[in-house]
């Protein structure tokens, strides 16, 4: 299995090295540095074989995490493990950065000791780990009894992701839907392909072992119910927008009972404590594009570019989009920019090589435009500008995929609190991201 785990900074200095197997020598640490981190060309593959040793690496900001093995392992599993490792570290000390890793190195060694034993992954759920990891320092004798009962409860409870005996004064549940739209546009403005990848993120602060049920307007469920009551389908067609969505594929957190999902399409689960990602999904059919972006670029001579970008909001006039931010990339040899926009504020940010245009609010079926004159420094560099895509960030009160939350129920059989006592925060305030590509001058 995993023979060793190394963490390097961007210079290739080893921050953490933990070897689990005798077959991984000290020279493995250097081999990876020389062949991958210090290699001149771009990274050719996340898996590197050096002298019959395989190195699997992931990069988080400028930190390299590498897992090393001499055996033939399941590559997907090693990568998933590295992601998990990153998640766990983030849960403990926030962003993975050189400084944080240096400050927490004792904790990291402790973590590495618990999640991997002899190179085999052990319990890696953050919630459960909190009972073993003693970063804060617990007085052993006082703690022993409680700790013992917690650890034994994990044996009997069989739920690896939640420990028993959690108590909250206020039972709260947060649900956020985050979607990002990925758009491919031809230079003529046609939409070539679009897909939405979404995530349902929850924060649960619930006592005991609650059972939750989450319902959305999944097409298959709606159709099933529709068969029983024909009226309902009739109604739904009258309503505005689409009532159900076809999900191409979705994956769930391990707490969701997959058997129930397969048979009844219902999502029921005992949530882990704290923040977690309930599901990820992807849709490609009938995507509502909240905005249309029409870029026009004209080259005026060798040292000047004229850019005009029109955005049209494409939803009901009664709805409002908020915090709109359009990012128009500019060439690297830009010397100056003059912008005129009808609405909002626009600024050229030289450090980011982009014009950032911000609009606070925009109602549906409106149009707004920005025009900019970009002055270029003449260069001899023949290389073409890479033309990064125009990207857009905004919040709209509906989901581009059409996803709606139909219900979110909580049952706790043992403790005396019912569904009504839970304070639920279902946010359909969607953070969407849209990027259009390419912005073409030809």
């Amino acid at each position, binding site marked *: 299995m995993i023979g060793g785990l190394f963490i390097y900074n961007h210079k290739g200095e080893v921050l953490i090295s933990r070897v689990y197997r005798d077959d991984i020598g000290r020279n493995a640490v250097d081999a990876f540095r020389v062949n991958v981190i210090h290699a001149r060309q771009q990274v050719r593959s996340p898996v590197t074989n050096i002298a019959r040793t395989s190195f699997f690496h992931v990069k988080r900001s400028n930190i390299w995490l590498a897992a090393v093995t001499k055996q033939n392992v399941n590559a997907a599993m090693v990568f998933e493990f590295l992601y998990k490792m990153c998640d766990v570290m983030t849960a403990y000390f926030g962003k993975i950065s050189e400084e944080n890793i240096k400050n927490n190195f004792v904790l990291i060694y402790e973590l590495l000791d618990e999640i991997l034993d002899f190179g085999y992954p052990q319990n890696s759920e953050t919630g459960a780990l909190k009972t073993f990891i003693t970063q804060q320092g617990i007085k052993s004798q006082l703690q022993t009894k409680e700790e013992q009962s917690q650890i034994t409860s994990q044996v009997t409870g069989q739920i690896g992701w939640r420990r028993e005996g959690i108590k909250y004064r206020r039972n709260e549940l947060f649900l956020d839907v985050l979607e990002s739209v990925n758009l491919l546009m031809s230079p003529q403005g046609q939409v070539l392909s679009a897909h939405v990848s979404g995530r349902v993120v929850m924060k649960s602060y619930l006592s005991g072992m609650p059972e939750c049920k989450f319902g959305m307007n999944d097409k298959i469920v709606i159709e099933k119910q529709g068969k029983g009551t024909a009226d309902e389908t009739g109604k739904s067609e009258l309503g505005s927008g689409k009532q159900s969505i076809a999900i191409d594929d979705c994956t769930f957190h391990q707490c969701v009972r997959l058997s129930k999902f397969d048979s009844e399409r219902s999502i029921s689960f005992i949530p882990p404590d704290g923040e977690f990602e309930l599901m990820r999904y992807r849709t490609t059919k009938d995507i509502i594009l909240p905005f249309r972006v029409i870029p026009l670029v004209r080259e005026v001579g060798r040292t000047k570019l004229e850019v005009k970008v029109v955005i049209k909001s494409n939803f009901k006039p009664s709805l409002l989009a908020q915090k709109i931010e359009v990012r128009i990339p500019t060439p690297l040899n830009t010397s100056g920019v003059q912008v005129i926009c009808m609405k909002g504020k626009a600024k050229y940010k030289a450090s980011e090589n982009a014009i950032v245009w911000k609009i606070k609010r925009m109602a549906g079926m409106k149009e707004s435009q920005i025009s900019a004159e970009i002055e270029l420094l003449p260069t001899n560099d023949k290389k073409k500008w890479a033309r990064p895509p125009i990207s857009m960030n905004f919040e709209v009160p509906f989901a581009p995929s059409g996803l709606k939350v139909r219900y979110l129920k909580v049952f706790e059989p043992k403790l005396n609190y019912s569904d009504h006592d839970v304070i639920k925060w279902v946010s359909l305030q969607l953070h969407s991201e849209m990027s259009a*590509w390419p912005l073409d001058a030809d």
Partner: protein
Amino acid sequence: MPYLGGEETLRELRRALSNPHVQADPARYRGAVLRVIRLMAQGADVSGLFPEMVKAGAVPDVVQKKLVSFYVRAQAPLQPQLALLAVNSLRKDCAHPSPAVRGLALRTMCGLRMPGIQEYLQQPLVSGLRDKASYVRRAAVLGCAKMVKMQGDCEVDGALVNELYSLLRDQDPIVVVNCLRALEEILKKEGGVVINKPIAHHLLNRMPDLDQWGQSEVLTFLLRYKPRSEDELFDILNLLDSYLKSSSPSVVMAATKLFLVLAREYPDVQADVLVRVKGPLLSACTSESRELCFTALCHVRQILRSLPGHFSSHYKKFFCSYSEPHYIKCQKMEVLCELVNDENVQQVLEELKGYCTDVSVELAQGAIFAIANIARTYTEQCVGILTELLGLQQEHITSAVVRAFRDLAWLCPQCTDAVCQALPGCEDTIQDSEGKQALVWLLGTHGEKIPNAPYVLEDFVENVRSESFPAVKMELLTALLRLFLARPAECQDTLGRLLYFCIESLVSEGDKDVLEVHPDAPVSEEKELLEAHPDAGSLSLIPDVSLSAEQFERSWLSLDTSCQLCLPWAGPVHADTIQTALRVVHIHTIAMSRAGAQPWKAYLSAQDDSGCLFLTELLLQAADSELQVTVKQSEAKPEALQSFISALRTVLEAVAGLES
């Protein structure tokens, strides 16, 4: 500051650790231990503190125990005598009321790499396996594997193995998986853990309780199990069905593998499985985790090998997006090449065309070669696109396109005409050796279809003196001779000039014989010359000698030196030039040191038609301006030896002359 103060710091730490006031205050005590660990992590030698640290491990504080455990594991191999001290206190910890402490002590003891530790390990491990806390059992099970591994060749304890097999029925899922892992390691020599029917069925039933790591490992272990009957096989497949749609890609991939192996005899089931994993694989391919995406793409390529065109309807999923890293884009282009069919060829080519103008040279050329790959089936469209790209007049693009054309002209002769029409004008943009070679080859081989071919080659000949790549010169000579046969009138003068240049620079007798015939020789004679062997005198060397490096070494050591000579030599050696030049006269290079090595050596071999072997060593010492040549012969034939040496001398002198 090396070792942060060295001796002084160590002494101060030792004082702190043994100070009763510090020991009485848990926070200060732990602070001191932490400082030791920090020093150790920075590479300082802290082995002197071993007794104090072991003592520090005997406090109730778990955090401190962990820190000490970390220290002990790192330091024990350096001082085995002192490590015994630690063993005692660790054994005491194995009976501690807290399971966390018991588990930690077991793990620490198994991690001590010192001889003779086994006898102390046995008893705590056995009681660990029967511990009531699962945490301890997990550590104990893997501890068994570590112990056996340390023992090396010793007989495996049968009772231990049986105990582990019975623990496969443990309540705790991680204990179960750890048991499998441990048994696999312990029984490695006997072929690993045995998966019989009861075990297999038990594991299948426990699958839902396991975490993703456990699931994918158990699926791998199940590969070993062979169901007895068809019914059983399909029962298993039904049970495992849901794992094909698991949220974890590693489980999906492990399950797919298991399905494919189990359904070995049912091709339709196998095909069905591949259809069913399409969704999960595609979503992994579009996931944000790049490394997983890469893994999934590699799997897709594997599947495409057995089911070509399987993902054809989803070709759009394999279009590259701007922000993806280089390695994913390359994989996606490879996949796109395989997916092309009549319906999507237009869109795929359109997309690939977009990548051809990418800023990254490597990616742009990759896209061009991908189009060339598709051109084997959809020749006309692709050649059209490639021709269009020539219009951009970008150096790297033109070079790649011309190289693609050369391969195409070879593989699909029907497109030669189109290729030939596109070529004029390329010569101005191409700068690199590969591209020039391809262009010259095309001009030479298909010169009769390109009106201005002789004139383009003429330009090359004009500039041959400033040409820096020897391979291009070689290609030029061949191409011009070929074209001369097709269009003698236009080429005669140019060829003459090139040959004259060759004679001038290669002062070679062997070649002079060939070259002096020209420029007034009739065409027929020239043809003969092309086919004639470039041999020297009475000796004729056969073109392909199959002599491995080992064989060469053996013969070299067994033979006596037949002849030794020194040749004048100045400056560095160009290995490629020598190798190419020698190959022309059928002398083969067996091995050669890299350029610039001191001393520089090369080993050559040749064989004449009577089977006599000539083995040669070239040696260039750093200080000398002489190349020492040692020749050995398998049969004593003085006449052949003389001819061989003169041929060799000719070539080497020519190369030396060319470079100086």
